[in-house]
C-alpha cells in the first residue's frame, strides 16, 4: 500500500530556539499581542510503499532516528495515513 507520511521535527524543549524567538518578536511587533512560546521546526512529507500502516510507522521511526531528526537537539512526531 502507499502510505502518506507526515513527520514533524521540533527543537527540544529547553533548548534555545533563536528562530522561534525572532518570529515571536516579529508577531509582537505586528500587534499580535499574546503570542508566546513560539518554536520553529520542520515538516517533512513523503509517500512510502509499505505492507501496513504499522510497518510504515516502524520504518519512519528508524528514518527519524538515523537521519530526519537529531536526537541531541530535536524531537519528532510521526503521522501515517493511507
Amino acid at each position, binding site marked *: 500500500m502507499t502510505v502518506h507520511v507526515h513527520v514533524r521535527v521540533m527543537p527540544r524543549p529547553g*533548548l*534555545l530556539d*533563536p*528562530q522561534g524567538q525572532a518570529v515571536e518578536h516579529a508577531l509582537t511587533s505586528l500587534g499580535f499581542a499574546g503570542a508566546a512560546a513560539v518554536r520553529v521546526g*520542520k515538516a517533512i512529507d513523503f509517500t512510502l510503499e509499505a505492507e501496513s500502516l504499522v510497518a510504515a510507522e516502524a520504518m519512519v521511526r528508524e528514518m527519524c532516528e538515523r*537521519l530526519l531528526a*537529531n536526537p*541531541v*537537539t530535536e524531537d519528532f512526531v510521526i503521522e501515517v495515513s493511507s
Partner: protein
Amino acid sequence: MACVAVIRFPGSNCETETMSAIVRAGGEATLLDYRETSLHGADGVILPGGFSYGDYLRSGAIARFAPIMDAVRSHAEHGGAVIGICNGFQVLCEAHLLPGALMRNDGQRFVSRPVDVRIERRQTICTSEYAEGEVIRIPVAHGEGRFVADRETLAALEAEHRVVLRYVAVAGADAPHNPNGSANDIAGICNAAGNVVGFMPHPERLADQTLGSDAGHRFFTSLMGRLVGAGAAA
C-alpha cells in the same frame, strides 16, 4: 612524508586552503572525493569547512552518510587522526564520532570575524605545539556553531578535559567573546583518546604570515609532528 587526506563533499569550500596549510607544515595533502570508499593509505584525515549538501536538513546530516565516511569512521576507531573544521566538526557530531550537536547561532546571524580562543588541551593530534592556556586569534565563519549537549555530556567533557578550544574574552576586543552562544564557551572538543578533534574556528585561514598572522599554523605542524612520530613508531 606523512600524507593527509582532505575530503571534498558537494558544497565543501575550504579544502584548498586546508591543503595549503598542510603543505606549509611540511606534509603531503591529497584531495579525496566523498564517493571514494578508501583513504588510500593516508595517515590522517581532515573534513574541511563549507556547506556540504547545502546544509540541507541539518549541517552535516547528509554528508555523514557519504561513501567515504565508513573509511573515516574506521580510521578514527583504529586511533587514526581525524580533524573536522567548521562544517567538518558538524559532520563529526552528526556521525557520532564526537558528542553533542551544533545549532543555529543564538544571534540568528551568520558570524564571520576573528575570535579569541584558548588552547585548553595540548594532548591532541593537532594542538601539541601550542602552550596550554595560550590564547590565539583566528577566524570563525558559520551560521550554525552553537555547541549544545545534554548536561551529563557537558559535565563529562569538562571532567575528562576534552574541551580543546574555548572562546575567551580578551581586553580590548570589540565583540562578544562567544560568537554563537555555545555551551560553556566551547569552540572545539575531542574524543576520549584525543585522536578525533572538531572545532568551529578556521586555523587554515590564518596559517601564513603573508596574511598578517600565522596563528593557525601550529595546528598543522602539530598534526604533522604526530603523524611522522606515529609512522616512525610503527
